[in-house]
């Protein structure tokens, strides 16, 4: 604990490089603590994002030793290699500066996957009754806690190979809506998530599921979408 930590942090844009900073170690220190220490005490020009610091907002995700992680809840003791740690912006997203990425494409893909709820009821109608233990509700529950951090998107090889691939988060969102009994956008949504830019491009490698900080399983959601599109295709409804 007395040994300092050497944090190699990405500086600049896509053609930038790593700069190494010496940071004092503390018990239960997180990677976000390290970045914050550098920005407050060593170099105030360091750009990075965070908000809640408690794993709710999904804004502090970075690449730590090559692995995408939510830095506010990643302990240095768990990820440091000896007394070094390498912190970079999330992969597969354009770098704005230092540790800050441009997340527009990531969220635009949620829209392209028809990730918005389409309902028919108005405020004058009764609330929909959804049985909490129904298979659809259970399936939606399994994916609904996504915080939109982009860890799965950075972890996915297919995102790196196919620029138009919607990615695990957007497809996971679509799957929760496919299972939402109140939603009526199903047919258009299934068409939006089918094909080589959608669920059928997934190779089921499972990196998204392995690194999701919320322990969600986008791989299972994508498999669900493949089943749902198959059923729709057989019925001629795709």
């Amino acid at each position, binding site marked *: 604990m007395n040994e300092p930590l050497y944090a190699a942090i990405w500086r600049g844009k896509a053609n930038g490089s790593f700069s190494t900073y010496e940071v004092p170690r503390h018990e239960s220190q997180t990677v976000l603590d390290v970045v914050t220490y550098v920005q407050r005490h060593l170099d105030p020009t360091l750009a990075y994002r965070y908000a809640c610091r408690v794993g709710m907002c999904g804004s502090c995700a970075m690449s730590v030793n090559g692995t995408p992680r939510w830095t506010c809840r990643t302990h240095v003791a768990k990820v440091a290699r000896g007394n070094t740690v390498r912190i970079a912006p999330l992969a597969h997203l354009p770098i704005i500066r230092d540790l800050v990425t441009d997340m527009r494409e990531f969220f635009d893909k949620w829209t392209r996957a028809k990730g918005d709820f389409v309902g028919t009821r108005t405020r004058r109608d009764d609330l929909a009754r959804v049985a909490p233990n129904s298979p659809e509700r259970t399936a939606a529950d399994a994916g609904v806690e996504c915080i939109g951090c982009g860890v799965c998107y950075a972890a996915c090889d*297919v995102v790196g*190979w*196919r620029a138009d691939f919607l990615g695990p988060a957007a497809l996971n969102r679509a799957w929760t809506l496919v299972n939402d009994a109140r939603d009526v956008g199903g047919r258009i949504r299934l*068409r939006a998530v*089918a*094909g*080589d*830019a*959608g669920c*059928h*491009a997934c190779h089921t490698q499972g990196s998204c599921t392995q690194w999701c900080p919320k322990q969600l399983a986008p791989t299972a959601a994508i498999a669900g979408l*493949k089943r749902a*599109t*198959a059923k729709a*295709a057989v019925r001629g409804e*795709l």
Partner: protein
Amino acid sequence: MINVVTQAKLWYWQRLSAMVLALCVVSHLAMIVYASRGGLTAAEILARTRGNAPFAAFYSVFVAACAIHVPIGLKSIAVEWLRWRERSASIAAAIIALALLVMGFRAVYAIFV
């Protein structure tokens, strides 16, 4: 550009053909190992396969499954790993599909007739 419905259908065709191939490959290997235990000449092989309809039917299914499965996979590899454009990858895949069909059925014909 192939439309999304066709893309989805191709994926399911590849899945189904993979299931067929799994059975075909296992049967094919088992048959080779069993038949060639004591050595086997070309003439002996032809004596067993000529006019053997179930044999020809089995290998026809095998050839068809290959011609479906392989090009779809190669197209994905070309796009994702070799950075080919969708159109050129699709054309190349179609040519490979045709080549597999022609060569495969030619071989089936050769041992049957």
